[in-house]
């Protein structure tokens, strides 16, 4: 269905990623945000608290991130499209409730504007160091969806996709921003509401007497019912059967936990998004995501200028990990270069998918700024030398 025109700021704006993310949420139909201030994400909730009273939504600043991350789940069962916003330390506090949202299949969007860590780390400076926390931080086996915007425009566009994915697959969806994407100011174009496709909540059409809260549909996802509509829901974080009743035994655990993972993994083709550029005949492919993909773009251009066949593959969706796509690329290329603003997180997944077909090089960074393109270029050139590829030196080129 099309977005409600209520609150959609159609037009061309000059705004930062945090503000654009907030506008994306409002356009996607988000009407309930619970949050707690944390740099560098606070602008998202500040803007929401200003904007939402005239749009008919609700904002509450909770007492901590633990409370925020479960208040939104209460609100989701109350019928709202919901979001919370945080950064690394707050995300760490939310971990138990990410598990609850997975287990109870609660559609919700969690924005993580990443900063340097561990601990308080670098509150005002960027990193991409929560990529593994977001996937593995809560206990138990689970799958989530994580998107990685690289511009304020994408903070708007991908926010709409984040809500649509969370409503479709009934799982927490993460917007993995970072301090630079959150605070950089660029042109952001917000289309008219009738050009914004949004996914409504999958409310059941069954009567209460026929409805089973966790009976999966053909896509492995159950339809939802709202508190107050007579369905007498029982929702628990315990392992449960299709009625939602606790069922703490091996078959119930096996059935539920596998379905929760499979509904994402077996539908991954509908979720993953890898943007390839010049990969068809590339010898070296730079695989990147988020803000680092902007810097990587400069390094790729420089390497091409030296006569190397370098492709670029950007993971717009980092989880589920695009392993099929990376495996395909690694069979064609001799080397894969992975720059990321951490000491090596997604590179491990790239190596796993590449399976030795291409040699994988990490361009790490402890965080605090984006990479210098020259550092990525150096690694591309090292990969070229290791693969016996010829290229002009900088001196020959000039």
């Amino acid at each position: 269905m099309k977005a409600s025109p209520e609150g959609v700021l159609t037009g061309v704006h000059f705004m930062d990623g945090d503000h654009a993310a907030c506008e994306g949420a409002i356009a996607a139909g988000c009407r309930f945000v619970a949050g707690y201030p944390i740099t560098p994400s606070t602008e998202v909730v500040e803007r929401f608290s200003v904007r939402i009273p005239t749009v008919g939504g609700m904002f509450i600043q909770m007492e901590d991130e633990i409370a925020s991350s479960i208040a939104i789940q209460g609100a989701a069962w109350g019928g709202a499209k919901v979001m919370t916003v945080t950064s690394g330390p707050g995300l760490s506090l939310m971990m138990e409730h990410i598990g609850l949202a997975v287990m109870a299949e609660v559609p919700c969007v969690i924005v993580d504007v990443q900063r340097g860590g561990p601990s308080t780390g670098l509150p005002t400076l960027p990193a991409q160091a929560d990529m593994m926390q977001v996937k593995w931080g809560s206990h138990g086996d689970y799958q989530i969806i994580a998107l990685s915007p690289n511009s304020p425009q994408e903070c708007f566009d991908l926010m709409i996709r984040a809500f649509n994915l969370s409503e479709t697959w009934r799982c927490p969806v993460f917007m993995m921003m970072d301090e630079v994407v959150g605070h950089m100011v660029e042109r952001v174009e917000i289309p008219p509401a009738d050009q914004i496709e949004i996914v409504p909540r999958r409310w059941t059409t069954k009567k209460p007497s026929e409805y089973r809260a966790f009976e999966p549909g053909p896509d492995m996802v159950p339809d939802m019912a709202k508190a107050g509509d007579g369905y007498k829901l029982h929702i628990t974080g315990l392992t449960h059967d299709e009625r939602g009743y606790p069922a703490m035994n091996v078959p119930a655990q096996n059935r539920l936990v596998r379905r929760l993972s499979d509904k994402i993994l077996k539908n991954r083709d509908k979720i993953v998004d890898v943007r390839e550029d010049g990969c068809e005949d590339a010898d070296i492919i730079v695989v990147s995501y988020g803000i680092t993909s902007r810097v990587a773009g400069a390094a790729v251009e420089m390497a091409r200028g030296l006569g190397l066949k370098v492709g670029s593959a950007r993971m717009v969706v980092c989880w589920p990990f695009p392993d099929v796509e990376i495996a395909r690329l690694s069979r064609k290329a001799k080397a894969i270069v992975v720059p990321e603003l951490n000491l090596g997180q997604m590179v491990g997944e790239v190596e796993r998918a590449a399976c030795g077909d291409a040699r994988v090089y990490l361009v790490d960074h402890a965080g605090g700024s984006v990479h210098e393109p020259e550092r990525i270029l150096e690694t591309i050139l090292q990969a070229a030398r290791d693969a016996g590829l010829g290229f002009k030196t900088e001196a020959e080129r000039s």
Partner: protein
Amino acid sequence: MNPTEIMVSDADEKDVDTSRVAPIENPVLSMLRQDRLPHIWCPGCGIGTVVNCFSRALMSSGHDMNNVAVVSGIGCTGRVAGYMNLDSFHTTHGRSIPFATGLRLANPGLKVVVFSGDGDLFAIGGNHFLHAARRNLDMLIVCVNNFTYGMTGGQVAPTTPLKSTQSTMPFGNFEPPMNLPFVADAAGASYVARWTVFHIRQLVRAMKEGMEHKGFSFIEIMSPCPTLYLRRNKLGDGVDQVRYFKEHSVLKNGANTQDVAITATDPIVVGTFVERERPTWLDSRNAQLTATLGDRFVPYGGQNVQK
């Protein structure tokens, strides 16, 4: 299992001509998820009595049961949500109040009742309790205080009386317990009462009052844990404890909550301690935004709820 069978099976079949016994139906059965019975609580536990009182309070309240939701945390009392035939949410340890906050604000037509234990609400969840009371969120909090962590095997709780033995206070508790009504009062709760599971009529009435009261209502219910608190401290069984509640309770409506701490020697003060009018969070929000934004303010209407 049919609950009627459970009740009849208590009698010795040889002595009872069952053909002459009228079918027994528990009067609150319609309020329970019968397909989840029998429940997990121990013989002599007070939580079943509290559920019975809550069911009676609901049945006589005139509320549409489709509009009442129960939210629980984790623990023995946390299992209440699983047995009530209502929209019911069994959430995470200590976080029932923030979940209830979201549920209530996103669906303003709901009556939201939080059912949890003393450890859940006042140890791990203590901060949420304070802030929900401060905000005067419109919800009823029912705290079953059994002085221990029952589900995990009887560890010291923020309410465990001094000198009592618990598995993690094996040589006697030296931490002063919390006076729950005083905490609720100080944080801004607008209805505060304490009863014990002996006071079933008062409890039914208090639960109805708490649900009707506009704002943050808190009821502490003292309840026996025969398995892990009473037995370990040689205090008898559940019936002994209820007898103790009966003999040592003193009714003091309007008592100063500073003076109602539970001690080994003083009588147990019960009654309605606080009843005050204070705008709820939602009323305050709507008033403030109307005053500042005028016609531009759009109250929460769940426009995004497509049904």
